[in-house]
C-alpha cells in the first residue's frame, strides 16, 4: 500500500527547511485548505451557473451567454462583481440580526460540508470518521438559515417561502439519510474515503449504483429536493411566491444565497459521485494502466497523474449529475406542496426503509458482494 501524496507533510517540511519555525509553518498550512475550499467551491458553483445558462439555452433554442469572454464564460464573474458592488438594502421593520445571519448560515453550512468531500485517497481536507453523517448533519443547518431569512424579511411571500423550505428540508432529510445509511452499511463505515475504497476493484462494475439502484434513486430525488431544484423548488417558486425567502435580499446577501444554492447542487453531485458512482475511481481499475505501462505505482510523477485523474473523474461524475439536474429543471413542471410532502413521507421514506432492510438482508446472505 502506498502512502500517496501527503501535501501537509511536504509543505511543512518545505517551510521548515526555509527556516520557519514548525508552529508557524503549521499555521500557514492551515490557511491553505480554507483558501482552497472557498476558491474551489466558488469556482465550481460559478461553473454550475454558467452550465445552467448554457444548457438551458441549448434546450430552449437560444444561444445563452456569448459575449463575456469565450462562450460567455466570464459572465458568472460579472454577476458576482455586480452583486458585490450593489447597495446592501435592509427592508423596513425587518429583524436586522436574523436578516443578516440567515444567508450567512446557509452559506457557511454548505461550505462546511466540503470538508469531508474526497477527490482522492488523501485529497480531502479531513478524513472524519463520521464522514457522510457529518455532511447530513451540517447541511440540515441550512434550512434554519432559510427560515430565519424568511421570517426576518417582514414580507409575507418570504415567510411562506421560509416555511416551505423548512417543511421540505425536514421531509427529505430522512430519505436522504436512509439512503446514505444503506451505503454506510455496505462499506462498514461512515468515512467518505472508506466508502469510495470499498467501491474499488472491478472498475465500473464495483460501483455502488449496481448494488443500490433504489437507494440511488432515493438519494438523487432527495438531493434535488434538498437543493431546491425545479421539480421541488417550492421555497422560491417564482410564479407563486415571487422569489420566496430571497424576496427582500439584494447585493452580497443575495449572492450568498445564490452561490450557496449552486454550491449545494455541486455538493449533491459530489455526494452522488462518492456514494454511488465510485468517487475518484476510473471506470476501470487504475492499477491496470500502471501495470500495462510497467510503471511503479509508487513513482512520484505517476502519483500526480493518478491524483489528477481522480479529481477529474470525481468532477466529471458530479457534473454529470448537475447536467441531469439542469435537464430536469427545464423539462418538468413544479409539484405542489402537498404532493411534495406526500412524495417524501409516503413514498420515499417507506421505500428507503425497505431498501435499508433489503441491504441488510443481502449483506447477511451474500457477504462477498455486499461488503460483508
Amino acid at each position, binding site marked *: 500500500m502506498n502512502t500517496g501524496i501527503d501535501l501537509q507533510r511536504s509543505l511543512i517540511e518545505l517551510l521548515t527547511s526555509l527556516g520557519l519555525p514548525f508552529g508557524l509553518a503549521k499555521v500557514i498550512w492551515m490557511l491553505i485548505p480554507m483558501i482552497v475550499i472557498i476558491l474551489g467551491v466558488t469556482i465550481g458553483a460559478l461553473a454550475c451557473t454558467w452550465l445552467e445558462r448554457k444548457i438551458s439555452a441549448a434546450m430552449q433554442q437560444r444561444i445563452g451567454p456569448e459575449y463575456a469572454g469565450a462562450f460567455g464564460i466570464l459572465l458568472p464573474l460579472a454577476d458576482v462583481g455586480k452583486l458585490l458592488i450593489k447597495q446592501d438594502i435592509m427592508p423596513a421593520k425587518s429583524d436586522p440580526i436574523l436578516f443578516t445571519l440567515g444567508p450567512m448560515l446557509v452559506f457557511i453550512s454548505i461550505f462546511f460540508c466540503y470538508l469531508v468531500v474526497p477527490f482522492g485517497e488523501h485529497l480531502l481536507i479531513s478524513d472524519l470518521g463520521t464522514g457522510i453523517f457529518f455532511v447530513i448533519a451540517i447541511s440540515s443547518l441550512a434550512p434554519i438559515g432559510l427560515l430565519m431569512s424568511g421570517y426576518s424579511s417582514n414580507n409575507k411571500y418570504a415567510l411562506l417561502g421560509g416555511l416551505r423550505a423548512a417543511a421540505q428540508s425536514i421531509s427529505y432529510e430522512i430519505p436522504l439519510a436512509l439512503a446514505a445509511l444503506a451505503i454506510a452499511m455496505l462499506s462498514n463505515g461512515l468515512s467518505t474515503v472508506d466508502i469510495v475504497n470499498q467501491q474499488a476493484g472491478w472498475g465500473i462494475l464495483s460501483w455502488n449504483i449496481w448494488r443500490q439502484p433504489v437507494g440511488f434513486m432515493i438519494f438523487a430525488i432527495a438531493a434535488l429536493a434538498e437543493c431546491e431544484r425545479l421539480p421541488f423548488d417550492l421555497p422560491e417558486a417564482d410564479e407563486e411566491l415571487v422569489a420566496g425567502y430571497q424576496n427582500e435580499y439584494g447585493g452580497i446577501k443575495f449572492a450568498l444565497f445564490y452561490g450557496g444554492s449552486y454550491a449545494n447542487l455541486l455538493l449533491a453531485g459530489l455526494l452522488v459521485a462518492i456514494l454511488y458512482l465510485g468517487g475518484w475511481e476510473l471506470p476501470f481499475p487504475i492499477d491496470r494502466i500502471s501495470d500495462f505501462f510497467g510503471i511503479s505505482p509508487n513513482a512520484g510523477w505517476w502519483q500526480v497523474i493518478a491524483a489528477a485523474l481522480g479529481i477529474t473523474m470525481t468532477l466529471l461524475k458530479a457534473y454529470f449529475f448537475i447536467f441531469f439536474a439542469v435537464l430536469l429543471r427545464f423539462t418538468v413542471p*413544479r409539484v405542489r406542496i402537498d404532493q411534495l410532502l406526500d412524495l417524501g413521507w409516503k413514498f420515499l421514506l417507506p421505500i428507503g426503509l425497505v431498501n435499508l432492510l433489503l441491504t441488510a438482508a443481502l449483506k447477511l446472505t451474500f457477504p462477498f458482494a455486499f461488503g460483508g
Partner: protein
Amino acid sequence: MVMIETKAERMVINMGPHHPSMHGVLRLLVTLDGEDVVDCEPVLGYLHRGMEKIAENRTVVQYLPYVTRWDYLATMFTEAITVNAPEKLANVTVPRRASYIRMIMLELSRIASHLLWLGTFMGDIGALSPFFYTFREREMVYDLFEAATGMRMMHNYFRVGGVAADLPYGWVDKCEDFCKYLTPKVDEYEKLITNNPIFRRRVEGLGTIGREEAINWGLSGPMLRGSGVNWDLRKVDRYELYDELDWNVQIETAGDCLARYLVRVGEIRESAKMVLQSLKQLPGGSYENLEAQRVLAGPKSEWNGFDYQFIGKKSSPTFKVPEGEHYVRVEAPKGELGVYLIGEDNMFPWRFKIRAPGFVNLQPLPQLVKGTKIADLMAILGSVDIIMGEVDR
C-alpha cells in the same frame, strides 16, 4: 385530556398588480390559512383606459388602430368585431375573397393566442421551456402577419367591407408551409406536456366547473367547451364563411384545467387545418367591398372617378354608422367577444359597449380557488386565460 389549542391567524396576501403570474395587472386579495386559499377577491381596473368612451368620438377607421389594445394577443379578433358591428348595421357585404382572408387571419390569430397561452400556462405551473417553444411558432405567425399587414401585433388590417390590402405575392405558400410545420410541433408539445405525470397531477380535477355552472356564469370559449357545452359561435352564428370549411368544435366534458388545456391544444390543430383549407379554397376577386363594386360596374363606375381614386379611396373615413342598435359577436380565442353598437346616423357611434370574454370568464375565479393551495391558484388563473387589457379595457 388537555388539548393545546392552536389558532392560526389568517394571512391576507396581496398578489398583484405586479406579481409574476398575474398576467398583467390583475390584483388578487388572497386570504390564506397556511398554504390553503380561504378567500380570494379580484381587484380590477389597473389597465382601464376608457376604451368604450374613446370609441364614441372616433370614426371606425380612426378607432381601428386602437382596438388591438383590448386583447393584444388575439389582435385580429378585436379588429374583426370592430368592423363587423358597423358592417352588419349598415348591411355592407364582404367579398368572398375578403371573407376568406379574414378567416385565415382570424385562425392564425387564434393559433398565436393559444400558443402564448400554452407557454404562460406551463410557466404558471413551473415548466419554463414550453414558453420558448411556443414562442418560436408564434413568431412565425407574426412574421406572416407582418408580411400581410405590415405590423406584427397591432395590424390595423380589417376595414368595413373587407381588408386593408390584398395578400402579398407568395404569402399563401408561406402560410401553407407554416400550417404544415405547426401540426408536428403541436405533437411535440403534447409529447412533452400532456402525459407528464407531474403536469397531470397538477391540473387534473382542478378548478372544475360543471356544465350548468358554466352556462350560468355566462362563460364562453374554451372555458365553456371544456365543461362539455358544444357552443362555438363559428358554428352557431355562421359568420364569415366558416360553413364552407370542414372542421370540428373541440369539447371536453371534465371541466377542469386539463380539459381546458386539451380544448385549446385541439383548437390549435383545428385552426391549422382550417387555415390550410381556406388557403386551398381562397377565391380570386376583390378584397374590399368598394373595390368589388368598381370591378362589377366596369370602366364607367363612379368609383373610378377622381374622388375614389385619390381622395376617399376607402369607404371608412366618412362611413356613417346608421341609426339602430344591435349586438355582434365573434368567437375569439378567449370566448365570445361582442360589441353592442348604437348608431345615430353619424360617423361616431353613440354607444360602443364591449363584451370582453376575459372579463366574464374571470368571474368564477374566487369560487374556483376557494379551498385550493396557492400553487393551484396560479394554475386555475392560468387556465382561465385572461388578458388584462381586455378585462379592464
